[in-house]
């Protein structure tokens, strides 16, 4: 542990790159445990009521779920590409990439909207049974994170437009990117848990 002693230099208020990276990872730790409670609930009830989960997952629309998985994976690629671009100082490409990501986030939420509308129309709602309680809770909390991520990336896009980022300073882009990838990562688990194996 003593090896990691970063010694501050100058006023502490300049956020260092390393400091911010550490900050976002600690934040993701708490996010992971926020979802962790739901994963625990899922595990407990899946073991307790396997049939309920099997029957429940057949009710869900696999096409929407798969489509959304693809959409999020693509959005992750575009964020990653954006960060690679700003590392080279290519602000224009960064803006394009961020724009695509926010757009794909919007697509994700739109698909979600149609999917939920369909679910509600068929009388499936959070109070239906434990499976649907879990489905709506986990997907809903994830959806809120997608919205938050879209907000953050839009802000980054706005700042990029004002020329705030250069090859020498892109800490906020990187941090926001890590967050967006985490949102994608959670969905990677939610997709099979609800749509495929139930």
């Amino acid at each position, binding site marked *: 542990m003593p090896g*990691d002693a970063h010694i501050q230099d100058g006023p502490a208020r300049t956020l260092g790159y*390393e400091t911010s*990276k*550490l900050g976002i*990872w*600690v934040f*993701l*730790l708490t996010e*992971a*445990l926020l979802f*962790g*409670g739901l*994963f*625990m609930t899922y*595990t*407990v009830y899946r*073991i*307790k009521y396997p049939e309920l989960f099997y029957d429940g997952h057949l009710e869900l629309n*696999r096409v929407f779920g*798969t489509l959304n*998985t*693809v959409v999020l*994976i*693509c959005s*992750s*690629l575009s*964020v*990653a*590409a954006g960060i*690679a671009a700003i*590392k080279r100082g290519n602000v224009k490409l960064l803006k394009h990439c961020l724009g695509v990501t926010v757009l794909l986030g919007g697509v994700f939420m739109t698909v979600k909207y149609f999917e939920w509308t369909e679910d509600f129309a068929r009388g499936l709602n959070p109070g239906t049974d434990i499976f649907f309680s879990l489905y709506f809770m986990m997907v809903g909390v994830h959806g809120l994170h997608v919205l938050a991520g879209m907000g953050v990336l839009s802000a980054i896009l706005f700042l990029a437009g004002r020329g705030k980022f250069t090859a020498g300073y892109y800490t906020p882009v*990187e941090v926001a*990117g*890590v967050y967006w*990838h*985490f949102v*994608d*990562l959670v969905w*990677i*688990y939610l*997709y*099979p*848990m609800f*749509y*495929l*194996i139930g």
Partner: protein
Amino acid sequence: MKDYRIYFIVWGSLLALTFVTWRVSYIDLGVLNVVAAMVIASVKASLVALYFMHLRNESRLVWGFALFPLVFLSLMIFGTLSDVLFR
């Protein structure tokens, strides 16, 4: 251009794995369905974490904080299961 290429390879693998897990779910393997789905999801998650989130190049400290929640998550799940499954 190396990093762009890596990102596209990772992206391609993620899409391929999504396709695999989707197809596998139609084959009835019993309990193995769950195992297969979770293993594939974990591989995908690792790809995202290692390459997209740059965990590959991070310090040991960041690795620590990235893996830390898994420890607590399993603690929470096993602790609770020790009750729920053995009543």
